[in-house]
Every structure is written in C-alpha cells, then in structure tokens.
C-alpha cells in the first residue's frame, strides 16, 4: 500500500526542494543506499529518520536502508561493520576519534566533496576538524557549544552576576556554597564529564595551543603548567564547589541536583538544555555563560564537539553516499535538522539559520566571535583514546581525593610515554 501515496508525496517533495536547495536536487538516484546511524536517542532518531525521508522523496527510486544502533554499542560495533559488512554512510565523530579508522584505511577520502564550492565555502569553519594528513574524511552534520548552564534565579537570589573572570567565578562559588548549595553539579561515573572540566581549566589557564600540544603528547603531565591547572581545579574542590558523591552518578543522574536547586550550575554541552527544560526549568530560571578568563591574556577557546558522517572505504554505493552527504550539509537541511524542535544544536553550514533559541544564539555568537583561541573537540576526542581513558579516570580520582595528585600525574606521565611512542 505504501507506494500508492509515495509517488504524489515524492512529486510534492521534489517541487518543494527544487525551489529550495539547488545543489541537492540533482538527477534522481537509483540503486541502494545503506545508512548506519548512532542517533538512538528519541529526538535525534526522529530527526534523522525525517531527514532520510526527505532524501527518499527526492530520489523515489533509490532503495534506502537505515539501521539505527544504540549510541554506546555503536562505538564498539563500528570496528566490525567497517571491516566486514560496510554500510554506505555511517555516523561518527571528528578529529582524533576518527584517526584510527582513517589510518586503517577504513574511511573514504572525501576531499573531492570539500573542493566543491558549495561545501568549501560554507563549511570552512569545521574543515580543520575533518582533516587528517591534508585530506578530509567525512562531513560534519551538527555541533554544539559547551559552557556553564546555571540557575539564574539562584544567582539573582544571592545577588550574583555572570562571572567575568576567575576571581568572580570563585567568589560566586563561595557565596553559593555558603547558601548551602553546591556550586556545580557533575556526574563523573562515566568519567568524560570530568574531562570537560579539565579542558576548560587547562585551556583557560594555559591556552588552547598548550592544550593541543598536550593532546599531541608534547607536554609532560608532571609539567608545572599542568600542575597550575590542577591547582586552580583544587581551589574549587576544596571549597566544596561540586556535589558530593559525584562518582556515583551519570551525567543524567546529576541533573536533578540542578533542577531541585541543590546545585546552581553545570558545565556541560548544549544537549543538557533539553532534559533541564523537560524537568520543568523555564528559560527565566536557566541561563548560560561562557567559562571566564583565568589567566589574563590567554585567548578564549571553546569545546565544540562535532558529529559527522563518513563513507566507509568498503562501501558499495559511494556515488549515492556522496549525494547523501551533499544533501546533509546543504544549508536548508542544516537549518532544519539543527532547529530547536529537532537536534537543537548548531548548523555547520554558514548559510544556514540558527534557530531562534536563547542557548543556540548565545552558543553561536560565542563560537563565531568570542572564541579567538580556537575550537577544540572535546577531551576524549582530541587526546588519543588510551591517554584519554587513563587521564579521565585520574581526573575523577583527583576530584574525590585531591591529595593523590602527584601519584595520578606520575601515572599519567607513564602512560604518555607509552602512548605517544
């Protein structure tokens, strides 16, 4: 029965799209297209399925097969399906996280796409994150800012303002702790949340270039500059800035502290906004500020993790896959899938419109004009996997037992010596 209404719908879709994106609506494709997605959460899943639906309407004769895999399981399964039974398009992450697959020759070089003016001009800002060995290995489809989400009502109650520097940041924190709340909530059970704190403290203390140098393995963990970062971190830990027992919670389990007003802020990615709103926080209660300057003169830099689409090297239908990637990054699709009612993140195409959402606007302004130092991906995407895993475990230990710092740093230094040989 399905095909009965498919044809008129497809015609409608074609009409709409040919008015919209010229690039994407080329000749109709035929054959197969096998897409693997890790967007298993309800909202991203619906967004992706709707997007693929629109692609299908443009190419009614194309046989699209979509598989959605649980986001965590995907991270281990990707190795199997890239080597054995490759799809034509697969989601993944930018920067160092794609390096193992690039080096093993499992991702297709898509530099040709990046030569096309449509992509070259409009996606320039994320080109660096997709580049390894001067070639591009995929296209981004969304990214999002990190920063401090805070309870505006609590700040107002205590007469606090968004901090402009490290001293204000700490004095705010002291005031919040004195009021019987924790300054920040965090759930460090799965470790990566602590990586976000290290990213910001290190980038603000020593700068983006130093941080990236560290990611490349050129700085010892026992270096005094690294210790300075931890000394700043320790000030927060010692004043009781973080919720107790954070090692027991996942990042989602740490949300209620913020919702219940037991903690006043959360250093997180923009994806935390949706569950906070769902839990009943209104936009009057919830606000955002950029992590403030710590060392004067160090240019601000941000974390903005980028999610990506790749073509596996063993794909069967690479032409169809390329057409799909062009479609995904087109200005209209980017506007649509990143809008507040879909992914609620930032579009990677410069010609796209950012949805009129308080946090998206702030994030977009911050990343485009107030991040002169550079844009990092995230701790576990910039640092090699093994270093990241050990380090994040060390961060968690440090946050619970700050006195173990020397032992932790020595251990990390040993790992560094092995990982970057």
């Amino acid at each position, binding site marked *: 029965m399905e095909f009965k209404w498919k044809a008129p719908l497809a015609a409608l879709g074609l009409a709409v799209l040919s008015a919209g994106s010229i690039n994407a609506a080329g000749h109709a494709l035929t054959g197969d297209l096998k897409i693997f997605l890790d967007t298993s959460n309800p909202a991203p899943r619906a967004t992706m399925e709707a997007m693929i639906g629109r692609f299908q309407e443009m190419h009614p004769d194309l046989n699209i097969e979509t598989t959605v895999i649980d986001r965590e399981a995907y991270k281990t399964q990707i190795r199997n399906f890239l080597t054995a039974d490759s799809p034509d398009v697969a989601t993944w992450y930018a920067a160092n996280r794609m390096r193992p*697959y690039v080096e093993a020759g499992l991702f297709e070089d898509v530099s040709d796409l990046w030569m096309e003016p449509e992509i070259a001009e409009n996606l320039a800002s994320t080109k660096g994150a997709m580049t390894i060995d001067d070639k591009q290995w995929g296209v981004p489809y969304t990214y999002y800012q990190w920063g401090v989400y805070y309870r505006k009502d609590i700040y107002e109650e205590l007469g606090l303002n968004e901090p402009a520097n490290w001293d204000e940041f700490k004095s705010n924190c002291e005031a919040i702790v004195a009021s019987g709340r924790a300054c920040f909530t965090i759930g460090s059970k799965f470790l990566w949340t602590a990586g976000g704190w290290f990213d910001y403290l290190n980038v603000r203390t020593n700068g983006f270039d130093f941080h990236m140098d560290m990611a490349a393995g050129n700085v010892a963990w026992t270096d005094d500059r690294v210790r300075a970062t931890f000394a700043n971190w320790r000030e927060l830990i010692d004043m009781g800035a973080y919720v107790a027992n954070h090692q027991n919670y996942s990042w989602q389990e740490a949300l209620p502290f913020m919702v219940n007003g037991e903690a006043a802020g959360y250093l997180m990615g923009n994806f935390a906004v949706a569950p906070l709103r769902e839990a009943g926080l209104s936009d009057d209660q919830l606000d955002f500020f950029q992590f403030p300057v710590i060392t004067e003169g160090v240019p601000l830099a941000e974390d903005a993790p980028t999610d990506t689409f790749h073509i596996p090297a063993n794909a069967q239908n690479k032409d169809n896959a390329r057409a799909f990637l062009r479609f995904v990054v087109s200005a209209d699709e980017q506007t649509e899938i990143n809008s507040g009612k879909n992914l609620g993140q930032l579009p990677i195409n410069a010609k796209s419109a950012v949805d009129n959402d308080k946090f998206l606007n702030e994030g977009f302004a911050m990343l485009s004009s107030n991040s002169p130092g550079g844009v990092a991906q995230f701790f576990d995407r910039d640092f090699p996997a093994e270093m990241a*895993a050990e380090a994040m475990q060390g961060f968690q230990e440090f946050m*619970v037992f700050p006195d173990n710092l020397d032992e932790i740093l020595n251990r990390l230094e040993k790992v560094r010596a092995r990982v970057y040989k």
Partner: protein
Amino acid sequence: MTTTSEPRPRGWYKRNEIAVTPWLFLAPAILFFLVYVIFPIFQSINISFYDWDGLGEARWVGFDNYVELADDSAFEVSLWNNFKWLIFYLLAIPAGLFIALFLNQTVTGIRIYKSLFFFPFVLSQVVVGLVFSWFYLPNEGLLSNALAWFGLGPLNVLGDPTWATYGIIAAGLWPQTAYCMILYLTGLNAVDPEQVEAARLDGAKGWKMLWYVIIPQLKPATFIAFVVTIIGALRSFDLISIMTNGGPFGQTRVLSFYMFEKALSEYGFRMGYGAAIAVVLFLIMLMFIAYFLFSMYREEKGR
C-alpha cells in the same frame, strides 16, 4: 543343489558400530568445543604476543605486554579484586546450606517459601545490579537510611574505593546464595533417613549431626556448589559493569572487566594487551579447572 548361503558381509559401520557410535554422538560437541573453546584459547595466547589495535597490522612484541602488566597498577588492583571475589563469593555456599536446612521441613506453604528464596536467582544480573545500586545510593538509598537509624553513615558504598568491591560482592551473593540453596535442597532429599536414624540412636544431634552425618552426605551438592560459585566469581562482569562501571577510578575492576576495557570498550582496542590479561585469567581458571577435573577423575576411579 543347495547353495551355501554365506552370511552377507557386514558393512564397515556395522562391524565397528559399538566403537564408532559414541564418537558419532560426541562429534558435534567435540567439533564445537574445539572451534569455540580450544582454538580461541590458543588464538588468545598468540595475540597476547602482539601489539594490535584490531584494525591495522599486528606487530610482534614478544613478552612486552606481560612486562607491562607486571608494572600496571590497574592490573594489580584487578587481580586483588579477583581474589576478593573468589574468597568472599564462597560465602554463598554456607549461606545457601543454612537456608536449605531451614527450608527443609514440611509446613503448609513451604513450596511458596522455597520459591521466594529462590526468586533472586531468576532475576537477571543486570536487575540485581540496578536494585543494589539503588539500595546503596548515598543519600536516598535504603542502606544509608537504615544506618541513619543507628546514628551511623551516611555511607557511600559504591563511591568509596575501599568498600565498593565488597558492596558488589554482597549484591552477587544474593542470587548466588539462592542457587546454592537449591543445590542443597535437592541434596537434602537424597540424605539417607536410615543413617540419620542410626546417628540419632547413637546420640548425635545438633551441630554434631550436621557436621558428621548430614554434610558428608551432601558432598556431591557441595562440590557442584563450589564449582558454580568459583565460576560465578571469575565471571563477575555484569554486576561490575552495571553498578560501578569499574569505578570509582578503576578500583572495582576485575580481570575480566579490565580485559574488556582494554580490548573492546570505547577507549580500548589494545587487543594484544587485552589478550595478555585474558591469558592470566585463564591461568587462574586453569588451576581450578585442573582441580575440578582431578577430583572428578578420582571420584570415577573410586567407584
């Protein structure tokens, strides 16, 4: 004319039927055992001598992975935790025995009580892990609240590196005790009433009766309970993964979990190193396997 009817020559199979048939029946099992158990063991041992990320070229490194293990504090922690599991998990055996003795009576509805005690074993390990992690929650958890009545706590069992492993073992004991209990309940059915009667005439009762008359007769049940508990302790993966994910800071890892993390998890993919851990785990298991096989062999021979 009479033709002497030679008995028709029997086929090769018919002639060797008695010798061959058992092997025919065994063949599928042997085949699968070789392909899925024996062969992977040697494969793992082989991989443990390589540096391999599972994708690219494997590089021969000899004993480097083992040298690194010897100096790896996380490995040391995992190994110790494995020993803790082996020792404390065995508590399931006496606990199961006493519950079985307690339930081995005839009162109305005893079947219901037995099923209730057996119930935790039916639950998936994942559910057990979740329930216990809620039980242990630092503020809202039942344990903290119970301790508060006595003016103790709050105790963050799973967040405290010294307590976390014991907390997980306690969670594991819950279903394992039920399992041992069932084994003993069936064992108790086979206890010879005449021997009990004779012992009673000789004046044995209480602990003496238990120790000298009942427990010796439960030896087969004890052996099986020991085997399944040791195996359970060495496979203690699901509970750790659910309850602490190896944390806080890797203090609740056991070898199987560490192997998984190094070889197969999100940040892992050091196949050689993971295989080396697996080999160490295998050697530990081998000691028990050898012991089990030896006692079974002795048993058979004694008959």
